[in-house]
């Protein structure tokens, strides 16, 4: 299986970093647990944002809710990417060929694209709305897409080891 992987992923796995992650008694477990803790943080912040976009938590204006949760979501995503990179490096040549991992990567791309559409488009329609005001359909779509995509990303992450 290793032979089929693109050379860059084989090189990454065989790098000093890859060897260090595999051979250290604590590095892999720390990255593993850190990835889950970051996921919990990310999912929490993201759910708050998406629920606000869908019209929940309407006692507070959307801009306030989104701004607060956003910084937590960004910090958590950075932590997810960093710990994910460590976990990936340990077994890069296998993981890159894993179908579930490939689906997960594609969905992360889709999730980020959805976020970009929101940031550069939909956001303008909601930033000036006050508390209790009904959310526009574009915001609801963005929130629903986001929830659906990231839930499947998390499910894929948990499932990689079984394929």
């Amino acid at each position: 299986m290793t032979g089929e992987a693109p050379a860059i992923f084989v090189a990454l796995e065989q790098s000093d970093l890859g060897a260090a992650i595999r051979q250290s008694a604590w590095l892999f477990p720390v990255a593993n647990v850190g990835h889950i803790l970051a996921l919990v943080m990310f999912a929490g912040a993201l759910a708050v944002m998406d629920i606000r976009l869908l019209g929940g938590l309407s006692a507070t204006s959307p801009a306030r809710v989104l701004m607060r949760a956003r910084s937590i979501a960004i910090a958590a995503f950075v932590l997810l990417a960093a710990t994910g990179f460590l976990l990936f490096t340990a077994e890069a040549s296998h993981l890159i060929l894993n179908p579930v991992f490939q689906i997960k990567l594609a969905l992360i791309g889709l999730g980020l694209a959805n976020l970009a559409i929101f940031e550069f488009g939909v956001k303008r329609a909601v930033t000036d709305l006050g508390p209790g005001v009904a959310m526009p359909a574009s915001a609801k779509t963005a929130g629903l897409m986001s929830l659906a995509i990231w839930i499947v990303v998390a499910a894929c992450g948990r499932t990689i080891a079984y394929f």
Partner: protein
Amino acid sequence: MLRVMTAASAIVLAAGAAFAHHGWGSYDAAKPVTVAGPIVTSKYENPHATVTVRSEGKVWTVTLAPTSRMSTRGASEKVIAVGKSISAYGYPSTATPDEMRAERITVDGKTFEMR
């Protein structure tokens, strides 16, 4: 709308938990094999240790447990050193030929559980 989504999330999570049961995936628990012979290569690494074992003219890749669990159970790096004679009972991979996931191994008359 929110209620529907909560229900949908619960279903996804429940399905995930059900699938995560041991034996699901690419190892055939219905056809256990025992691979016995000398250890050719040995990696005491995360996420799980592996050895290759020469047995009946084939070289098997035997997937073991995470190093923390191995060492807790006394299966240190020395126990699975190259040249040692090992007997591994486990399930063959349905994806990679001559690969198996060990349920337990026996080295020098001592048996170590891997699950």
